[in-house]
């Protein structure tokens, strides 16, 4: 099994390789020995509390910070030493959006086009339309959402191969958030490699192939979303009309993880291959409703974190 995986990795082209990256700000702040890679065409999510080290990692990839240890390679180029060469591949939306001292969004985009040697603005116009952005507005008077949109346009319009987004959806209203996610999906379909950091699990769940949890400057866990979705086990919540059914069901040999007798509800954890059996059994009962409780990213990471805590406590006890 492990060999198989290794082979698989070897076949995949790595666009970004982060190796033992360390940036120590002292007092336990910073990032420590971060290692991961971004495959071509993959969307990688970063999740973590504020100050966990998401932005620091992204800044290192952008070559804005000099690593204290380890390295970041983008297409084999060092992100610090060959910073300007790596930028050919990257579109970036910074965490804090502040624009240069220019009049309007249009002027700003034109200026960026000059920096990037891009003359074709059709893609820019497409994105602008999709995000319903008025780029002629005064840059200084733009709302946070408008600024975010403008920054997105800037990051995407030169059609970069790698897209790095630091908290891209903060300040967007829910509708725009949907539009934005669609945009990302489209980029993904076009074969772009994307790194996206957020503190919102749902968002990442929707677009990412893999999500990394960063806590206290370390990658605690990287989960493949396919793994998450294709688990062998599923949870079902079942409510019965009468107490008798509820009690009878409990007598069956299902793994019940939660009982709520006041509502006649049970939550069952079941291997997926046994689901048909469950349904067969249920025909004998008067079932009010049955629903699958989805295993979310949030749930997964909460588990991971609580596991970590118990481990730590055990360590402390020892």
């Amino acid at each position, binding site marked *: 099994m492990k060999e198989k995986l290794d082979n698989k990795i070897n076949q995949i082209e790595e666009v970004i390789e982060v190796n033992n990256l360390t940036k120590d700000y002292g007092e336990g702040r910073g990032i420590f020995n971060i290692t991961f890679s971004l495959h071509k065409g993959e969307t990688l999510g970063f999740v973590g509390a504020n100050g966990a080290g998401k932005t620091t990692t992204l*800044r290192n990839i*952008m*070559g*804005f*910070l*000099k690593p204290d240890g380890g390295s970041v390679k983008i297409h084999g180029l060092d992100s610090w030493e060959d*910073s*300007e*060469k790596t*930028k*050919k591949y*990257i*579109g*970036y939306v*910074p965490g*804090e*959006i*502040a*624009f*240069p*001292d*220019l*009049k309007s969004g249009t*002027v*700003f985009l034109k*200026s*960026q086009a*000059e*920096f*990037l040697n891009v003359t074709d603005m059709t893609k820019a116009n497409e994105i602008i339309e999709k995000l319903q952005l008025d780029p002629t507005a005064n840059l200084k008077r733009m709302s946070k959402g408008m600024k975010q949109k403008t920054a997105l346009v*800037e*990051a995407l319009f030169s059609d970069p191969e790698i897209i790095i987004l630091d908290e891209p959806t903060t300040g967007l209203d829910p509708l725009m958030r949907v539009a934005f996610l669609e945009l990302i999906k489209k980029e993904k379909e076009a074969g772009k490699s994307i790194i996206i950091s957020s503190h919102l699990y749902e968002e990442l769940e929707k677009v990412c192939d893999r999500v990394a949890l960063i806590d206290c400057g370390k990658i605690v866990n990287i989960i493949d979303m396919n793994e998450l979705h294709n688990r062998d086990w599923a949870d079902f919540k079942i409510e019965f009309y009468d107490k008798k059914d509820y009690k009878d069901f409990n007598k069956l040999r299902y793994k019940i993880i939660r009982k709520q007798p006041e509502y006649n509800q049970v939550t069952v954890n079941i291997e997926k291959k046994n689901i048909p059996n469950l349904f067969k059994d249920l025909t004998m009962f008067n079932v009010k409703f049955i629903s699958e409780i989805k295993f979310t990213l949030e749930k997964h990471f909460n588990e991971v974190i609580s596991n970590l805590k118990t481990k730590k406590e055990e360590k402390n006890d020892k």
Partner: protein
Amino acid sequence: MISKPLFKQSCKANIGIWSFVTLITCFMLAIIIAVLGNLNVGSIRDSMVDMFVTDAIESTTQKQSMTYYNITENALTTYESQRVSLNYLLNQTLSDEQKSQIIGAYNSLVENGKSDNEAREILLFGKEENEKLAINTLITYYLAQGENYTQADINYFVLRSIEEEIYNSLVESEGEMIAQGTKEIISQAISDFTESGSDNASDFATFYIPQTLKKILITQSFDYQDRTLSIKDYFTEEKLGDISLSSIISYKAQLDVKEKELREKISTENPTFTQEQIDEEVDKELQVYKAELIPSLSSSILDDLPKDVADALTELGSLDISSLVIGSMFFRMAGILLPIVYIIMASNNLMASQVDSGSMAYVLSTPTKRRTVSITQMLFLVGSLFAMFVCTTIVGLVSLAIVNSSAISIGYVDMVLFNLGAFVAMFAISGICFLASSWFNRSKLSMSIGGGLSMFFLVTTILGLFGSKVIPSAMRIDAMNYFNYFSIISLYDCESIMSGSLTFLWKLAILLGIGIVTYIIAIFKFKKKDLPL
């Protein structure tokens, strides 16, 4: 090396403040030149100069009058007394018969091979003291004048005999130059005195000296004529004569009073003194008094003042207001205040503020090297400053050409050099601000360190001005000159530019060096540092 879009961005972001600062600075310069050229700010100074010159002429006139009077009066008195005593010896003590007898005897003795001394000894032998003197004098006179005893001959003999004596004493007291000139004046005075038949030497000299001197003095005062025109109208021969006469009269009066005073004092203090002893003592004291009296009577206004006050006034008289105002005040303070404000704001805008706000991320997320960013921003900053001083140079030159006034001592070359110097000083300051802006990630720090230092330099220059040499000593506070040692703007040497010396060049070279070094460090630092973008 240079990013065109970034340069454009910087232009757009800073053009407003640049135009404002340039406009105001040019406007100020034009106004200052117009004011200096049109208002006669030098009129007070001119009248001061007039006053000093007239005063100097008056003072010289008085001094020379008294000195010449003193010499002449002495000479005339000596002449008169010698003439009287010679007359007495030749014409009263000896009769004509005796004279020819003595001369005959002397001649025969000399013919017989006796020397002059031996002959005199033989003739004087056994005579009374009174007769001895008369005979001796007669022989000396005979050797010079022969047997002519008319008044004119006697006068001539006395004149010749004292001339040498006076000349020697003058060389001793006044020096050869004055002695030579005085010799003729005195000979003339003596012959005029004899002709006039007056017997009071002092009275004669009182009127004679002003008459003679005014002709000489008027030509001397011509030396001052190119200073101001009014001098020529102010001093006539007559006026100089009056000044001379009145100074002599007051000199005489003072001497008389002093003499009486001394005589009384000495006779009461030394009751045993004979009249001669008293005379001798009085004479001695008087000589001392004369030496003090002449300078005190002829002192000019400046001489009366304490030395530092006099120096201050002289300095004020020679003050060049236009170079002080345009050079030291405009180009080292008022005129660079706004450019410094521009430098502080622009240098912060170009680097630190963009890093602080995060907008630098958009530049650096494109394939633009950090070095390219800092070099582009540096070129913009230096270029905009250069353009600014090109503008002030043009405005300065045009204003000078339009105003075209003799009240402004600044030439076109000076104007260009002033602007060049100011630009180099601003280059150094901009280097410091740019370094601060490149070093710090926070606008706050960049502004307070870069701006603080620049303002410190400007303020110490302003404080230092009060102690610098361009300020007349009357207003100067010397201790404040120490402020100049704290400011790099002091290396912009306006005095040297005005005086035409080349010291300002090496000082500017230091400023240039400061600028180059700070810019290089800034570029290096920006390349190496962490950016929170």
